[in-house]
């Protein structure tokens, strides 16, 4: 006899993994269609239901290309799974597995909604996160997302290929550099809520109705950009830039192992979208629609899931649009951006949020409109810091050699 609690968790695991894999497959299709639309093309719109294979008189249904993910998957699985002779076989196999496992494990603590009310399945409310009650969801997410860099480095190292190695080197430098602003971005949120629990962070935003994107704009900006870099999306896709490194760390991979890498990349993007939405866009909260009580009824519970998924979808659409709007950074620009722009901005945000929060706590409810005033102050700090940084330490945008410096100075600048 299985405990009902374990059964519920197993059902949640199945739903989450199945949903994520399906979502990743269809996001690949969406990405390809979006790319085509932005470039004035049509995109993959042919693969649908091949009914004429069953009966000659039936016509094939195209279904806007919705069969494309299945075709892609079958293609990857049926391809020759070639392992080059010069690779370190154990690490070569381990790399895609570790990166996918780390990417999937992240979603164990990410809530996919609020809670389901009791009564229908179970006599207690069902939490929408697989591993509910961990209490330190943020820490788990960040610990696991740091493991992702191991997959990249292992893949690049085991491939024994110059392009792969360069990609892995770049990737490790980039991910380590951008972990810092990522952490600084969430520090403000943790300061404001006093919790590492994702549920509590969302609940704090739902209670006041002030999403942290409005009250901590600078932190939001820093986190948003760093999340792009952590997900290795354009304009930060230096680990695998096709034009320079062929495929970066997965140059030598083919077949199902390559598929694991690609799926893991999409899972990173989905996880980044979840974090952005939950930390800065109120998670499942939307004004007047979802309510903010801790134990919602069925209507609110369903609405909260729908709102959360809609927000995630919009953020992912933005990820895909940015890809075609911005050129890739050069590597020195990438590093300069991390250490000279993002890091100071993150620190300024941390100090500003600490001061503003303290003022808010001390004033209590004595001053009417204190929330609005704090938000305005945060926006003022954001704009001022932005202007100062952009004039004090502008990105090196030209390609001229630094003839006035000796080579040592040039190296130290990079």
């Amino acid at each position, binding site marked *: 006899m299985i405990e009902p609690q374990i059964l519920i968790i197993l059902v949640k695991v199945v739903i989450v993994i199945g949903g994520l894999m399906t979502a990743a497959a269809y996001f690949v299709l969406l990405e390809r269609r979006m790319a085509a639309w932005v*470039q*004035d093309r*049509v995109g993959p719109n042919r693969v649908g239901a091949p009914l004429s294979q069953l009966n000659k008189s039936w016509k094939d249904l195209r279904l806007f290309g919705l069969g494309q993910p299945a075709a892609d998957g079958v293609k990857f699985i049926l391809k020759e799974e070639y392992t080059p002779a010069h690779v370190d076989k154990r690490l070569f196999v381990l790399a895609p597995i570790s990166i996918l496992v780390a990417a999937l494990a992240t979603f164990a603590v990410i809530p996919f909604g609020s809670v389901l009310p009791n009564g229908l399945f179970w006599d207690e409310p069902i939490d929408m996160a697989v591993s509910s009650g961990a209490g330190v969801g943020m820490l788990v997410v960040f610990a696991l997302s740091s493991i992702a860099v191991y997959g990249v480095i292992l893949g690049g190292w085991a491939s024994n290929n110059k392009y792969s190695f360069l990609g892995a080197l770049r990737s490790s430098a980039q991910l380590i550099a951008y972990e810092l602003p990522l952490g600084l971005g969430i520090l403000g949120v943790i300061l404001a809520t006093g919790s590492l629990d994702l549920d509590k962070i969302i609940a704090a935003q739902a209670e006041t109705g002030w999403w942290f994107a409005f009250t901590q704009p600078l932190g939001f900006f820093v986190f948003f950009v760093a999340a792009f870099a952590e997900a290795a999306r354009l304009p930060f896709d230096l680990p695998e830039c096709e034009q320079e490194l062929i495929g970066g760390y997965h140059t030598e991979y083919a077949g199902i192992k390559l598929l694991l890498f690609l799926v893991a990349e999409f899972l990173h993007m989905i996880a980044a979208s979840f974090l952005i939405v939950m930390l800065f866009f109120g998670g499942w909260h939307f004004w007047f629609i979802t309510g903010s009580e801790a134990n919602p009824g069925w209507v609110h519970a369903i609405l909260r899931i729908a709102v959360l998924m809609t927000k995630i979808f919009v953020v992912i659409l933005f990820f895909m*649009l940015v890809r075609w*709007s*911005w050129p890739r950074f050069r590597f020195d620009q990438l590093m300069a951006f991390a250490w000279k722009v993002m890091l100071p901005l993150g620190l300024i945000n941390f100090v500003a949020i600490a001061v503003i929060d303290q003022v808010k706590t001390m004033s209590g409810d004595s001053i009417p409109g204190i929330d609005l005033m704090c938000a305005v102050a945060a926006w003022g700090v954001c704009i001022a810091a*932005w202007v100062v940084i952009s004039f004090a330490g502008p990105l090196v*945008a030209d390609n001229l050699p630094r*003839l006035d410096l000796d080579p040592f100075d040039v190296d130290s600048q990079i």
Partner: protein
Amino acid sequence: MKADDPDIKWVEEPQLGLSGKMYAPMFVQGLATTFKHLKSSLQGKGVTVSYPDEEPSIENPLIYRGVHRLNKDSQGRVKCVACFLCATACPAHCIDIIGIESPWEDREKYPESFTIDELRCIYCGMCEEACPVDAIELTSLYNLTGRSREEMIFDKEKLLSVYDATKDTEPMQSPELGGTV
């Protein structure tokens, strides 16, 4: 060559303006361009056509570079004088001509055989440029397919039949260009 070589002339790149230094305005500008293209694509104004279902429109067939044809003169004879200028100009060496003495009064030679390997051809139009009597021309036929390599080597009869098939839709360019009709 080192960076301080005196032969290198370094061009001053334009300085970043205010919006360039601020970075965000430029990003918004780029995003606006993306949205513009996305919108026009979603309204069905994309460039690509769904080819087998929908034929692409060729704006000016006279300057399109598709399948070759060998033109005929007013008496129905092949216009080619077997001068080999096209074969010489061809960068892909896809034209093969065997010229023999002409049975007609107005020229010395004519091609006994004239073959073009359509698979070798790169459709550059140099043969058309080189021809002194406007005998070889590129038509606007683009859907060139075959089941074997041999089938894609077009001989004189095939090239003349392309002329018969396209002479009404694509009149010879020579009159306007002052060539010999």
